[in-house]
């Protein structure tokens, strides 16, 4: 039995997905990237293989993606995370509907990808110049409010009053704004909701540059935040698809492409 690996080396986390010859997900592993991502990626891979009992030789083809892809030499090939995300999202999204737009919020960047019926990238736009509207913004918010990042969603949904407007576009200045809101005894839940709406509005502005088409698929770590999802649906004015494990879509896409590449090569050799 042959296996294929997709390795997404993000700024915050490393995601690895293993699929088998038939294209089914066997297992996945998520580890923090840290500062030594070459070493941490190898460790993450080793952990995953040990957990599943698969040997390194059993992995026929590996594709790396994400911002650290070029420097991870062990992979057989590297592709951009845009292409990988598109493939992964289209595959998972099939169960919910036809995906035409993918919104990905990562640790340090956000992207919007338009795909056609065959799952090919039609157009895309990225915000990779600043951290506003990314995972960092949420981390900063959680830190200042003394909560964990994964509590933010529930806190938002428990808010009783109207969300507060966060006016600063820059993460660093927004921090000062949040601190002064707290000092004026505003409710934590309303501040968190305001942060979520601020992120959602930024993303929608980004997406409008290339157009939004139904169905919209939302992935990346922050998609686990139910409060953020609610704000996104409000700002996009439509319901959106959120997969069960939103962090691994891109790595899954890379693994699928790895499988396709390997099988295509094999056909060429046998032909």
């Amino acid at each position, binding site marked *: 039995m042959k296996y294929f690996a997709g390795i997404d080396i993000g700024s915050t986390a490393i995601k690895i997905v293993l699929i088998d010859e038939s294209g089914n997900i066997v297992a996945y592993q998520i580890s923090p990237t840290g500062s030594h991502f070459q070493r941490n990626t190898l460790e993450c891979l080793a952990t995953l293989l040990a957990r599943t009992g698969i040997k390194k030789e059993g992995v026929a083809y590996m594709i790396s993606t994400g911002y650290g892809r070029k420097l991870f030499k062990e992979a057989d090939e590297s592709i951009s*995370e845009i292409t990988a995300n598109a493939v992964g999202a289209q595959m998972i999204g099939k169960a919910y509907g036809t995906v035409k737009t993918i919104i990905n919020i990562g640790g340090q960047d956000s992207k919007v990808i338009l795909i056609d019926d065959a799952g090919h990238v039609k157009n895309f736009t990225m915000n990779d110049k600043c951290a506003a509207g990314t995972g960092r913004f949420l981390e900063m918010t959680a830190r200042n409010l003394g909560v964990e990042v994964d509590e933010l969603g529930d806190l938002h949904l428990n808010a009783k009053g109207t969300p507060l407007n966060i006016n600063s576009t820059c993460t660093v200045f927004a921090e000062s704004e949040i601190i002064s809101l707290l000092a004026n005894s505003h409710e934590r839940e309303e501040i968190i909701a305001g942060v979520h709406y601020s992120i959602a509005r930024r993303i929608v502005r980004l997406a409008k540059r290339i157009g939004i088409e139904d169905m919209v698929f939302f992935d990346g770590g922050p998609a686990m935040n139910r409060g953020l999802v609610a704000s996104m649906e409000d700002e996009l004015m439509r319901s959106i698809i959120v997969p069960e494990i939103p962090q691994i879509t891109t790595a899954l896409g890379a693994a699928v492409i790895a499988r396709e590449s390997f099988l295509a090569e094999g056909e060429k050799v046998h032909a």
Partner: protein
Amino acid sequence: MEIERLERIKKTTAIHLAMEAKETLKKITEDFPDNPDAMGYFYSLFHKFCTDRGMLNSSKKLIGTMCLQVPYELIYAAGAVPVRLCSGAYAYDQIGAEFMPTKSCSLVKATLGMLNVNQSQYIDLLDVVVIPTTCDQKKKTSDMLKDKGFRIYNLEMPSVKDTEEGRLYWQRSVKKFALTLQKVTGQKITKRRLVESIKKISRARSEFRRLYNLRKQSPVSIWGKDVFLVTNAYFFDDIERWTDALTKLNNELEGRISEGISVANRHAPRILFVGSPVIFPNLKLPILIEQSGGIIVTDEVCSSSRLLYDFVTFDEANLYDMIPAVADRYLKPCTCPCFVKNEDRKRKLKEMVKEFGVDGVIYQAFSGCHLYEMEHKAVGAMLETDGIPMLYIETDYSPEDTGQLSTRIEAFMESLKARRRNRG
């Protein structure tokens, strides 16, 4: 004290410029194997250009120009030599940023920076600087340079080129320019001199057309990054020497084609590069594109094809016919977005896509250039109806965004390759 400070600025900027040029030349020559031998002439030309500004000295009078609407035929006929000043150096861009607004075009900042740092040298060297009234930033640049002591001639350009009024306005403007040139150089533009200079430039342009046509074939025998160097050299090189060097290059390329040598992979996506100009040493995007597996087969930028493509012709070899004929060539087929109603640019791009078998278009716009920024939607829509994908990139001269740009370009290449595979 002031002089010492100026000298220091000059020295540091010269070092930055030399480092920038060296890095670009290194990428161009070392990252791509199999460069044509004839390109050696151009590589060493640029090496000299960035380290030794003295090579601009000429026994004839030098006329500085900006943009591509200044009629070079008239300058040669008046016994002077034109040199295009538009700069591509980030080193100069940073100097120019000190007295230009933040959101302004890198090209204008760099040119201003260059003229500022080497002010006294250029004021002596250039008899006059001719700036056509094309875009807003060029117009105001001419004012700033006047204040610094440069002799500026504003070549009046209409904003509408399709009407009779615009055409006649431009013909009168060029005629006045011819009269001024005669005064500056002290040499009369006679009909024999004008015929000779028209023919001289025609020879250069026809060699360029040879190069242009060679790239229509598949596989391609030369990288786009090399072609940009060739056309950039036209800015300042002696025209007859340039024509000879290009002839040698064309001959070598034809030899390569008949031997079946190609520079790129057969499946490399064929790219049409449009938008804000590529000027040495800022070959950031073309190098990224070709390193990511694409090949630039043609372009529509004012530092390359648009500069050399169109020809002058005339009916009678008399000044009253030739001067309006020269004027017409610099106005009517010009696809610069500074003109209102730029239908001709869309038509040209449509035809280029067809003739070159283009897979995708990459549209570069310098941040702050409203003309290119505003036109990109219309161009993208037109290309979409023809089924050609376009990647729009807003950037400037700084090297900081190289990492982000490479992700986008790679994604674009991957999507082009996937489309090709699906088409079978």
